[in-house]
């Protein structure tokens, strides 16, 4: 028999005998399923967050904030600066000839999570009427828009799911006055869906604030961004930063993604080491259970290679089934699971866990690696067995 046929026959024979060692074999499968499941689930959290923040905004819109502020919350622009920014020539004009730029104001409010009493920070964003024109992705999915001048609020879809008491028609108490939720909006699953929106001027008067937190402007063309940034930052009357809306939001996932990445890496590493010991155990006992069989094969003239291959094939096959099981569990239990956490603006960002194909591939690669390490030493021991002593069992 050729080397190849030898390997094939002995591998198949061995794999067919795995069910006889089911209990011990399941140690590999379950151990690795645990590692891969936990790792994929954790990483799907940061993948989901990146998807939400990275999917927010567009390249033809610009966010202008006060210079040096690390987000909209710490940014204050007075009315004069706001007007000056809105008049930049790169900004598109609407049918009425006015610039398509919305002065927005950020106020942090506390709303409890569903089923909790303590409040979580939620962004209340004041938007000018033109803010709806420059965000065509926004749809009202329930109720209606707020009317400027009235204490009315619309809430993002994610916010209405995550936080308590944000259903259409419910009153909310902020700063000595009562507001009413009049609608629910969707912006296609981006970060704005974690917010509450109202009219800028209503918010300014209710919260005793003047000026804006940021100006959102629509560009006439994306080429206009660099010159506009240049003009605004070099203007001695202003002290501002300008970023495209996409850059502004995708820059916000950094810290949290790193934290989750470090956590996932550490947990997966320790679990993987534990699972490798388990795999070694299983494969050593599998080899010792097959001692007589391996001795017989060697006596019949099979080489060392096919024996190694058969042990490795068993280890890898069990490992990959564990990996698939783990990834599957992570997908079934966590994909689309929605949570919210504290974003960089010190307010809640709601997002959904996203088990992506890339994460599944990472999980499977890890499972194969554990299987390889766990199978290698036992395979070498199997190949080194003395034929005579192995035959005696």
């Amino acid at each position, binding site marked *: 028999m050729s080397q190849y046929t030898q390997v094939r026959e002995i591998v198949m024979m061995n794999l067919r005998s795995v069910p006889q060692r089911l209990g011990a074999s399941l140690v590999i499968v*379950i151990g690795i399923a*645990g590692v891969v499941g*936990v790792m994929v689930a954790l990483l799907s959290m940061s993948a989901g967050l990146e998807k939400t923040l990275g999917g927010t905004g567009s390249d033809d819109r610009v966010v202008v904030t006060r210079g040096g502020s690390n987000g909209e919350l710490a940014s204050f622009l007075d009315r004069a600066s706001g007007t000056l920014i809105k008049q930049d020539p790169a900004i598109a004009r609407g049918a009425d000839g006015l610039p398509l730029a919305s002065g927005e104001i950020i106020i942090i409010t506390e709303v409890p999570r569903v089923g909790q009493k303590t409040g979580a920070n939620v962004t209340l964003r004041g938007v000018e009427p033109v803010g709806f024109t420059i965000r065509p992705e926004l749809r009202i999915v329930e109720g209606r828009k707020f009317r400027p001048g009235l204490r009315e609020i619309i809430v993002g879809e994610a916010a209405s799911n995550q936080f308590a008491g944000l259903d259409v028609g419910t009153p909310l108490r902020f*700063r000595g006055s009562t507001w009413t939720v009049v609608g629910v909006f969707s912006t296609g699953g981006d970060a704005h869906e974690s917010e509450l929106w109202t009219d800028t001027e209503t918010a300014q008067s209710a919260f005793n604030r003047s000026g804006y937190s940021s100006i959102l402007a629509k560009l006439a063309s994306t080429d206009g961004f660099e010159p506009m940034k240049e003009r605004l930052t070099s203007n001695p009357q202003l002290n501002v930063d300008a970023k495209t809306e996409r850059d502004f939001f995708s820059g916000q996932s950094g810290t949290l993604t790193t934290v989750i990445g470090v956590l996932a890496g550490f947990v997966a590493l320790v679990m993987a080491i534990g699972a490798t*010991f*388990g795999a070694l155990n299983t494969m050593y006992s599998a080899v010792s259970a097959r001692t007589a069989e391996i001795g017989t094969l060697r006596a019949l003239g099979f080489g060392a290679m096919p024996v190694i291959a058969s042990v490795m094939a068993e280890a890898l096959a069990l490992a990959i089934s564990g990996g698939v099981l783990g990834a599957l569990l992570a997908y079934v239990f966590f994909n689309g699971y929605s949570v*919210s956490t504290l974003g960089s603006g010190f307010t809640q960002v709601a997002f959904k866990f996203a088990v992506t194909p890339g994460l599944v591939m990472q999980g499977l690669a890890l499972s194969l690696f554990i299987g390889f390490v766990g199978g290698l030493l036992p395979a070498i021991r199997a190949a080194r067995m003395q034929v005579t002593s192995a035959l005696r069992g």
Partner: protein
Amino acid sequence: MKYLGLIWSGLFRKKLRTTLTLFSLVCAFVLLGLLQAVNSLFSGGADFLGANRLITQARTSFTQPLPMRLLPQIEAVPGVARVSHSQFFGGVYQDPRNFFPQFAVNPQRLRDTYPEWVMDEDSWRRFITARNSTIVGRNLADKFGWKVGDVIPLNSFIWTKTDGTRNWEWEVAGIFDGRNAEWQKRAGLMYLNYGQFDEGRAGGKGLAGVFVVMVDDPDASERVAALIDEKFENSPDETKTQSEQEFQLGFARQLGDIGLIVNLITSAVFFSILFLTGVSMSQGVRERVPELAVLKVLGFTDRAVMGLVLAEAFLLCFLGALAGMLLANFSTRFLPAEFPIETDLRVWAIAGISVVVLTVLVGVPPALHALRIKIVDALAGR
């Protein structure tokens, strides 16, 4: 105890298998220890805070500063002993990665409400009298090598000065310590004199931030909190007053359900290790059926043999858990100061319970098997 040798040799009859199982157990308990320590931090982390302090914040959010004129009104509430105020400054020292919290406070009022911070009289005097002064926690001073008299530049990402810049300079008046070890660990923050802060800022003059309220009687704190909130109801500055502990926990809860994530990982780890140890134990007993039969021939009762197997399971789990927990405990010391997690009593208790549960689940099936061994059948190899 006299059977320890027997149990030991039974356990290490197959050295390789037991050692590998032990290593897996160690890994599992390292994770369990560290993860539950994180959980401790987030659930009961504020235990050390006294029950006699309340925090009064704006009802909308603690990021909305309350005006200073509320202070005398809060002081007038019956049951209130002392009041101080605190505004988050958001300063960056040299590099954004050097983050540490700073609060602008009234020095005398800080001293009255936080007797946990200790410092010599001269330093307090300097802090109270010099408007541009700051006091820094011992840990922070050690980290950056600051000493009294140094001028520390901070770039605030929130507060602009009247001259349009955001560079603030603060002179170190003193270095404070915690009253006990618990507080000493937390001496990693900085208090700034409200004098220069309020005078220098371009906007928000006269805003205090949040109020720290010390009550006469800790048992009455809930009643006092309700009285304060009642006082400002329906005003433009509605307040929310809660215990300092609740306030701190609220911060952690903002991050999300850390407890749930940690417990899910812990259960995945526990389930894997349960299965792995269980298989290893029952394999061990199956291989030793004739030997256990010999023990019964020698006069060991069925129950005694069962007990031996259970004791073996316990010893295995116990050794793995002990080594894992010690390793976890050891490694927490090398974490940076921003992650003050430790394997406290609660974590050790969880590990202890896990060992018992694990022993029962992995020990009982093989122990029952050992109980039922019939001498004749076993010796005949049936």
